[in-house]
């Protein structure tokens, strides 16, 4: 049995890569993941990847931020130390709006980005799980986990080549080394 773990199809054109995905799917070859130097529109639908739910997180973080700062202002200005400013009410809601808005935005931004980093496992110093160095430059890479299926490697090779892959790699290691 061969020691190949992953077969990578390297394309230099995103449309040919999409053709490659179609060809693999038509032949029931499961695709592990696709690595590209730029976002490819329409690829999620093709690979059956669900919509991102980050929007819900953003909304909830926004609500949290607005509530937190409004509570702080209410506590400070109305509850803890109300001031008599020309006899006007201490609970001066219009004055509280700008800061409430700012913190709604602040929490949304920080919370959404933190959720994105957490869900995608991005953090400073993380070792990159990259399969090919050129996937961040000029190659559109389809990765196929060949340990998960019994399709002959030659068939996968041919499918990728026919779709226009400029190079097909048979890798024994999953990721490239950064050492």
């Amino acid at each position, binding site marked *: 049995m061969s020691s190949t773990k992953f077969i990578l199809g390297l394309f230099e054109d995103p449309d040919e890569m999409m053709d490659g995905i179609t060809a693999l799917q038509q032949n029931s070859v499961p695709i592990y993941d696709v690595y590209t130097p730029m976002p490819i529109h329409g690829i999620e639908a093709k690979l059956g990847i669900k919509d991102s739910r980050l929007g819900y997180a953003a909304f909830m973080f926004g609500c949290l931020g607005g509530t937190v700062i409004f509570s702080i202002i209410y506590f*400070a*200005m109305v509850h803890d130390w109300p001031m008599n400013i020309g006899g006007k009410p201490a609970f001066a809601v219009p004055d509280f709006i700008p800061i409430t808005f700012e913190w709604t935005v602040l929490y949304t931004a920080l919370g959404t980005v933190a959720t994105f980093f957490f869900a995608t496992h991005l953090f400073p110093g993380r070792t990159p799980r990259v399969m090919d160095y050129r996937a961040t430059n000029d190659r559109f890479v389809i990765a196929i986990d060949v340990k998960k299926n019994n399709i002959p490697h030659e068939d996968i090779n041919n499918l990728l080549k026919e779709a226009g892959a400029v190079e097909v790699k048979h890798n024994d290691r999953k990721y490239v080394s950064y050492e």
Partner: protein
Amino acid sequence: MSSHNESIIREPLITGNNITYAQITEDILRPVEKLPGRAWWIGFSVASMGATLWLFAVSYTFWYGIGSWGLNKTVGWAWDITGFVWWVGIGHAGTLISAILLLFRQKWRNSINRSAEAMTIFAVICAASYIVAHMGRPWMAVYSLPLPNQYGSLWVNFNSPLIWDVFAISTYFTVSLVFWYTGLLPDIATIRDRATGLRRKIYSFMSFGWTGSVKTWQRFETVSLILAGISTPLVLSVHSIVSMDFATSLEPGWHTTIFPPYFVAGAIFSGFAMVQTLLLIARKVLGLENYITMFHIEAMNKIIILTGSIVMVAYCTEFFIAYYSQVEYEQYAFINRYFGPYWWASWSMFCCNCIIPQVLWFKKVRTSIAATWFLSIIINIGMWFERFVIIVTSLHRDFLPSSWAMFYPTWIDVSVFVGSIGVFFTLFLLFLRVLPSIAIAEVKLLLKGSSEQEKKKILQSGHIDATQGAFYKDALTKFDAIDIAEYEKV
């Protein structure tokens, strides 16, 4: 999908022949991967001398106190707040480009957003330094935060626009930084995968382990859209709140409801002028003429003429409303502004912001690099004068004629301002050296469809309306990086 053919009448966003994805990476990373040239070193030397001057002047201010500035009991705000508002305003163009143009799906933003956002961050740093410097006792800055303390607790006054400003500027800086850095991740990964040794280690650390998998890109785009969606009202709120520092006072000349939209328009106006000042030089020195094209320059000039005209209408409206209000203090403030002892500052402002930029209505001027750069400097000067005029002319003759005074800057005032420009350029030049000045991944999106070479193929195929083809070729004549002779035969 990335490959649909764009209408031929749209001008190309990437010029040049034989541009490939690898070529884009190569071109944009050249300043990062190669040692800098002489132009960079000259610029950096001058800028760091300015930064040193800033360090000295701010240290002097802290040591001897605010008395080292030219302020007096009548004019208690002058060059410091002028500089603060000027820098915050400059920052606004970056957010406009990165957020508002993203929401409007303006693809030309892709090649200028990165450097414009960097400009935003550095401009806000300069602005924030003014806030701290003008406190005189900078360690007291902590009292602008609502922290529990031993005086009660004595809280900050949340009714005050000055406190709104603390929250607005800090939020703006944080969100801009997060937006910018998130957008940088894929490009840092590109540098990482091309570098070796220590450089690879550093960029690997900074890349957060970016891989470019499908799910990562999908989330990345969602995050970009959300951040753009919240940054758009944010940027409008920030300069509105800055303007409320003035507008909610009872000072004639400040106490006007027109201030928020007028300040926001002025901010975008001056910000785009600064983007032009920086990018016209950067594209030449870094050899990025194929990515920052004449189309970009002209598009920015169109925004400048629009926002500049809004500012002009605002100046005239203010003047008219002062007359129409029948409030004699308001009327005096405006007569004094344009015909009093500071007439020269007010007319410099009016000429630089309103009259001279009107030449941008001419296409010849809009598409001339020299003229655009010259105008961008004029606008930067004019917008500095605008803030100076609003602040000082309103203050120097207040309700009590016995305390009327003039403001004269000291050399420390001047040094803090000139120095802050040095700080700004030092940071910007360092940015050009270590990070890609153009969003590589986003520019790659434009290659199929919006590039000159693709459009040339469409032209050569001959399956287009002849008038549209002629229109397109006519549009190309303004591009400085395109040799129009190539299109004779096509």
